[in-house]
């Protein structure tokens, strides 16, 4: 496997690193999308770890920066953000198609990256699968029960709650990645449509989502039939934080992604060895 640096895109404005296995042509390429404002290497270099593991298993990969993020510039097109993202990811798919012969793609994204993966998977027929890390989820009655009941049963927690409300917080606000979830009905419908088109979908939630997701059961509460579809996989790493800051948590995530890909979208290659 070799890694090559590219400046690419319709305006030559995008920067990315392609991991190219030693095969002449590989059907499935992997594209990693920015997590928030972190440049293409990902939080704590998560994207580098994922890309290298998958490239070693024969998947061409591309980790790149969307327009205006990381090392990528603006395309000077005045497009709405959603169209910009679709066009940037299309450019990324074109690059992997040209460099490695890929014709179908799996998008991987964390947080705002999951939002962008969803956006592109809705409309681009070349997307064959997506891995949503802390993607959309919605508070359900079950979530609220699991969230508040333990607090009500614990006087110490009630005291802390009241104390926090009475004293001004000095806590620094968490980074705002600008993720605004569309209505549940819309997302549920779009996911169902993706599955109908044959996409494979993997949803991974971390413990960092505890303000809106707190149990595997909640996934079915949110998405109904989508959760039961054979093309859907759900993983929940409750102990991990949102950006997988601990090495062991990160390794568990990378292992999970590798296993899911090999099972759901095994590589089809021509020539050489992966």
């Amino acid at each position, binding site marked *: 496997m070799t*890694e*090559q*640096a*590219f*400046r690419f895109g319709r*305006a*030559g*404005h995008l*920067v990315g*690193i392609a991991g190219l296995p030693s095969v002449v042509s590989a059907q499935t390429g992997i594209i990693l999308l920015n997590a928030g*404002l*972190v*440049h*293409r*290497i990902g*939080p*704590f*270099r998560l994207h*580098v770890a994922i890309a290298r593991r998958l490239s070693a298993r024969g998947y061409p990969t591309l980790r790149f920066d969307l327009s205006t993020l*990381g*090392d990528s*510039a603006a395309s000077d097109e005045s497009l709405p953000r959603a169209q910009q993202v679709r066009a940037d990811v299309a450019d990324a798919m074109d690059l992997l198609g040209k460099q490695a012969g890929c014709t179908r793609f799996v998008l991987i994204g964390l947080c705002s990256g999951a939002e962008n993966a969803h956006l592109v998977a809705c409309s681009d027929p070349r997307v064959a699968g997506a891995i949503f890390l802390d993607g959309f989820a919605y508070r359900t009655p079950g979530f609220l029960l699991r969230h508040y009941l333990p607090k009500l049963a614990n006087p110490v927690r009630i005291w802390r709650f009241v104390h926090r409300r009475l004293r001004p917080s000095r*806590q*620094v606000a968490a*980074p705002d990645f600008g993720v605004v979830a569309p209505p549940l009905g819309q997302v549920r419908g779009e996911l169902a449509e993706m599955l109908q088109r044959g996409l494979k979908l993997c949803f991974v939630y971390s*413990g*960092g989502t*505890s303000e809106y997701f707190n149990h595997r059961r909640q996934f079915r509460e949110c998405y109904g039939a989508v959760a039961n579809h054979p093309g859907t996989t759900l993983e929940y790493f*409750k*102990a*991990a*934080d*949102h*950006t997988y*800051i*601990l*090495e*062991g948590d990160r390794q568990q995530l990378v292992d999970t992604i590798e296993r899911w890909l090999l099972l759901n979208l095994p590589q089809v290659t021509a020539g050489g060895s992966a």
Partner: protein
Amino acid sequence: MIARHDAERPLFFGADQGLFGIYHPPAVPATQAVLLCPPLGQDHIRSHRLYRQLATALAAAGVPALRFDFHGSGDSAGDSTDIRWNRCLADTTAAAAELRQLSGCEHIALFGARLGGSIALAAAANVKPDRIVAWDPVLNGPDYVARLDALQDSLRIDTRRFNQARTAEVAAGQWQGFTVDARLRQQLAELRLEPPAVQVRLIESALPVTTSADRQRFIATGATVTTLSSSTPWEELERLEMAIISHELVQSASGLLREPT
């Protein structure tokens, strides 16, 4: 003079083509170039945008600049467990040679923040720069190691990050998201930088973490100190994943790096 972003050139270089860098060429031929040495660990990710802004500002002012990632960091080959102090010094030497070749400039200056500044200072003997500008460099290794250990211990029990505090075992051998090899840890624990025989410009954030005795060693040999008007949250748990942004730093460093020798 305006540097076009699409002129920035991403590339791999070095003996095994394993080092990643981005070269910022100037619009016209130059006589002096700047090598930007990145910090390590989470400091590297947090200061990525600031380094890009600084490189862009330098190129726009007619000074070519090269940003790069040490072996085992960023987009360069290797894993974080492969990072070693001496390898970082060798990478800096390789990057300086690459910059001299790309720019055609024999005269170069080095810039580095935190451990990037420390590496720039330590690599001076081999790289032979005209000048080093170091922002909040780590001058005292033992203090730095102790502070990062304490920060890691606070991190693992931070219930704003984790649903439940994590054990010391699962957080061991790591500093804020990155596994650290015991040899690098030892190398840093023994680090005590001496002033190099080149012009040194220290930039300090308000409320610097550098102790006065370490600063004095450098000031006594001619280093000048520029103090920024605000502090930089390098070691604040609450801001661990927030970008380091300082227009004042970009302006100050850009000016110091372009001073006539």
